[in-house]
C-alpha cells in the first residue's frame, strides 16, 4: 500500500544504514518508495512503550483527553501507552476500558491500552471484573489501582492469584497508606525544615517486600510502579536472588524520569508543580535508581504522565494534586540522566524504554527489533539537539511540567506507528 525509505539512519546509535517500510512492516528493500526521509545524524529506536500514563479521559478532560495525551505520546516517541484506570468513571468494567481503547483507536496516534482497576472504584475492598476486562475488546492484561495501593494483603494476594489465570500482571502502587497519612513530601531533612508531613521510604519498601512474597507464593506476575527509593532497589534485588528462583513468579519494576533527575529539594519553593506521589527523593536515591536501571535491577522507565488542571497546582502545596507531565520529556530526561552519564548506550535506552516494557505488558507487536519482518514502530531521535521545555508548548491540555525553562538534550524528530508517521519533524500528523 505505502512504502517508505529512511535514509542514513543510525539504528540504536550504531553505524548509519537505510531502513525500508512496506505496509507497516520493516522490509529488506523497497524499489521506488512512495516517500524518502533523510535521517542524517538521527538515531532509530523501536517506538517507545509507556506502562504508566494518565490520559484522564473519561472524567478529567479539563487536564487531558485521549486525543491530546496521544499527541503528547507520539511527540515523545511513544507508539504504545498504558492508560491508568483512575478515571471517572473508573476503568473497572468492560464498558469503560473498551471506551478508552476505542478512543485510542479513533485518534490513532499511539496504541492505547487501558489498564484495568484491581478493585471496584479503586476502593480497595473487592476485586473488579478482571476476567471480563481481559476478555473485552480492550484485551486488558495489566491491572492496577494506581494512585492507591492495594493495601489489604489478603486482597492483594487474591488479585495476584486471580490475575495469574488471566496471564495478566498486577501493577502495584507501593504505598502503605497507614504510614503516609497526610504525607506531602519525602520524609527527611527537607520536609522537616519545610514543615511538610513526611512520606517515609519504608511505606514503599515494606509493600514491595510484602508483594514480592505474595507474588512468589502465588506464582504470579507483579510489577512495581514508580519505584523511588534505594531501599526498594535492595528489596527487589533480594527478591530476585532469594525469593523468586524456583517459582513461576516474576517481579518487575519501573522508574520514572522525574525520580531519575529531580530531588526532594525541589519542594523548597513550595511550588506544587514538584508535588508527586511517590515524592521526589534525596540525591542518594536518584543515584541508586540510575545505577539500578543501568544494572537491570529496575527493568524499565515509565512516565507516570499525570496532567492536572491549573487550579489543582496553582495553590497551596498541601491542597495540590500530586503528579507531573512526562510523555514529551521522558526520552530527554533519560538521555540526560543515563546516556550522557555513560550509564546506558542507545541499545540500553531501547531496552528500558521499549523492549522490556512491551515484554512486561505482553505486547507482541511493540518493542521489537529493527529488522525485516517486524512491525514498523519507530522513533527517530536527534541525539545532539538541545531544547528548552515550555509547558505551554506541550501537547497536553495541562502544563504542569517540572522541567519548565530547563534545557534538555535529545529531541524526537519522527515517530512511526505501523508504517505511518504520527510525528514528522516534531509535528503531530493528526488523522482523526
Amino acid at each position: 500500500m505505502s512504502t517508505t525509505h529512511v535514509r542514513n539512519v543510525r539504528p540504536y546509535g550504531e553505524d548509519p544504514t537505510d531502513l525500508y517500510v512496506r505496509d507497516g512492516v520493516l522490509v529488506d528493500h523497497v524499489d521506488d518508495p512512495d516517500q524518502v526521509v533523510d535521517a542524517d545524524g538521527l538515531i532509530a529506536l523501536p517506538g517507545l512503550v509507556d506502562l504508566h500514563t494518565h490520559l484522564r479521559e473519561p472524567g478529567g478532560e479539563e487536564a487531558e483527553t485521549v486525543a491530546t495525551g496521544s499527541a503528547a505520546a507520539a511527540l515523545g516517541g511513544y507508539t504504545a501507552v498504558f492508560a491508568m484506570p483512575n478515571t471517572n468513571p473508573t476503568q473497572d468494567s468492560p464498558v469503560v476500558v473498551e471506551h478508552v481503547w476505542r478512543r485510542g483507536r479513533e485518534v490513532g496516534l499511539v496504541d492505547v491500552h487501558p489498564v484495568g482497576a484491581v478493585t471496584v472504584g479503586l476502593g480497595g475492598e473487592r476485586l473488579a471484573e478482571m476476567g471480563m476486562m481481559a476478555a473485552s475488546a480492550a484485551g486488558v492484561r495489566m491491572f492496577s489501582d494506581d494512585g492507591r495501593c492495594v493495601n489489604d494483603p489478603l486482597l492483594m494476594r487474591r488479585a495476584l492469584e486471580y490475575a495469574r489465570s488471566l496471564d495478566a500482571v498486577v501493577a502495584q502502587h507501593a504505598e502503605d497508606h497507614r504510614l503516609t497519612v497526610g504525607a506531602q513530601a519525602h520524609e527527611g531533612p527537607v520536609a522537616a525544615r519545610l514543615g511538610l508531613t513526611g512520606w517515609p521510604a519504608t511505606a514503599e519498601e515494606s509493600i514491595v517486600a510484602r508483594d514480592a512474597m505474595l507474588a512468589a507464593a502465588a506464582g504470579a506476575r507483579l510489577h512495581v510502579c514508580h519505584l523511588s527509593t534505594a531501599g526498594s532497589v535492595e528489596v527487589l534485588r533480594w527478591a530476585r536472588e532469594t525469593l523468586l528462583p524456583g517459582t513461576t513468579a516474576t517481579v518487575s519494576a519501573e522508574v520514572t524520569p522525574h525520580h531519575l533527575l529531580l530531588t526532594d529539594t525541589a519542594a523548597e519553593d513550595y511550588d506544587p508543580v514538584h508535588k508527586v506521589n511517590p515524592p521526589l527523593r534525596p540525591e542518594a536515591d536518584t543515584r541508586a535508581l540510575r545505577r539500578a536501571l543501568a544494572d537491570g535491577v529496575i527493568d524499565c522507565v515509565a512516565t507516570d504522565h499525570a496532567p492536572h488542571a491549573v487550579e489543582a497546582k496553582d495553590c497551596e502545596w498541601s491542597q495540590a494534586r500530586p503528579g507531573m507531565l512526562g510523555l514529551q520529556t521522558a526520552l530527554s530526561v533519560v538521555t540526560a540522566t543515563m546516556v550522557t552519564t555513560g550509564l546506558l548506550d542507545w541499545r540500553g535506552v531501547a531496552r528500558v524504554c521499549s523492549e522490556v516494557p512491551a515484554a512486561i505488558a505482553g505486547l507482541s507487536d511493540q518493542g521489537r527489533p529493527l529488522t525485516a519482518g517486524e512491525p514498523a514502530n519507530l522513533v527517530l531521535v536527534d541525539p545532539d539537539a538541545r531544547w528548552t521545555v515550555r509547558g505551554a508548548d506541550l501537547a497536553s491540555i495541562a502544563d504542569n511540567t517540572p522541567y519548565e525553562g530547563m534545557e534538555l538534550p535529545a529531541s524526537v524528530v519522527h515517530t512511526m506507528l505501523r508504517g505511518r508517521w504520527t510525528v514528522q519533524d516534531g509535528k503531530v500528523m493528526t488523522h482523526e
Partner: protein
Amino acid sequence: MTDATGIGLRHLLSTEGLRREQAEALLDTAASMEQALTGRAVRKLPTLRGRTVVTLFYENSTRTRVSFEVAGKWMSADTINVSASGSSVGKGESLRDTAATLAAAGADAIVVRHPASGAPHRIAGWLDRVGHSHTDGHVAVINAGDGTHEHPTQALLDAATLRRRLGADLVGRRVAIVGDVLHSRVARSNAHLLATLGAEVTLVAPPTLLPAGVDAWPVTVTHDLDGHLATGPDAVMMLRVQAERMHGGFFPSAREYAVRFGLSQRRADTLPDHAVVLHPGPAVRGMEIASSVADSDRAAIAEQVTAGVHVRMAVLYHLLAGEDVA
C-alpha cells in the same frame, strides 16, 4: 527611633535564612518601640499613616491577630481583618485570587495565617510576579503561622522576651524547647532564630514528636527532660500539645505525657534562679505546665504577649516604612 529601615527584608516568611544583623535590627527596633511608647498617654506613632495592613487568617487565633492589629494601629496604619469564615474565602475562592484581590484593593502588607505550610511563600511568589501601582510594585507578606512550618514573629517575640530577661546578648545562652516539635511552627522558628542569635538550643521531646531529619537542624536533641534540666538551662520554652495529638497515637496518654514532659513545680524548682519559662500560649495547664509554674515570676507568659506587639510593630516598620514615609 532608628532611621535605618532598609535591612534587606521584602517579606517575613521564615526565620530560617534571616541574617543575624537583620534579626538584631528587628529586635533593636522592637526595643525602641517599647521605649517610644512608654509613658505616653496616647499610644500612637505616626509612622505608618496612610498604609494599609490586612490580616488574612485561615485559622482561628486571638492573640496573634490582635497583636498584629494593635501593632498596626499604634503606628497609625489602617488595619483590616479578613477571616476565612467571613469573606469570599468561605465560598471557595482560591488563595491566589484572594491574595490578588487584597493587593489590588490597596493592601501594603498582608499578614497571613494558614493551615498549609508554605502558603505565605506562595502568596509572596504570586504577588512578586505582578506589579502593584500603589506600592511601587511591592506588597509585603508576613507569615503569622503556616501549617507546621514557621511562625517567625512568635520566635522574634520570644527572643525579645529573652533579651529583656537575660540581657541583649544571647550568645551562649542555653534554651530548651520542650514538647511537640513535630507539629510546631513555633519550635522551627525558634530553633533557627535562636541559633542565628548565638544561643544553644536543645529540643526535648519523645521520638514520636520529633520530625525525621531533625538532626540537620542547628540544635541538639534529647528525650530526657529531667536530665536536661539538671544541666541548668537559661530558659525553658514549653510547646503547646494540641488536643488532636493527644488521641493521635503520638504518646500513650496525657497523663504519661505530663509525667515525662510536663513542667511541674518540682521540675521548675530544679532550674537556676535566673532561668526563664516561656510558653507561646494558650497553655494546657496541668499537662504541659503546672499552674503554679505558669503563674510564677519565672514565667514570662504575659511579657511575651506585650513583646509580641513591639516585635510586630518593628516588622511592619521595616517592611513598610519606605523613604516616602516620615
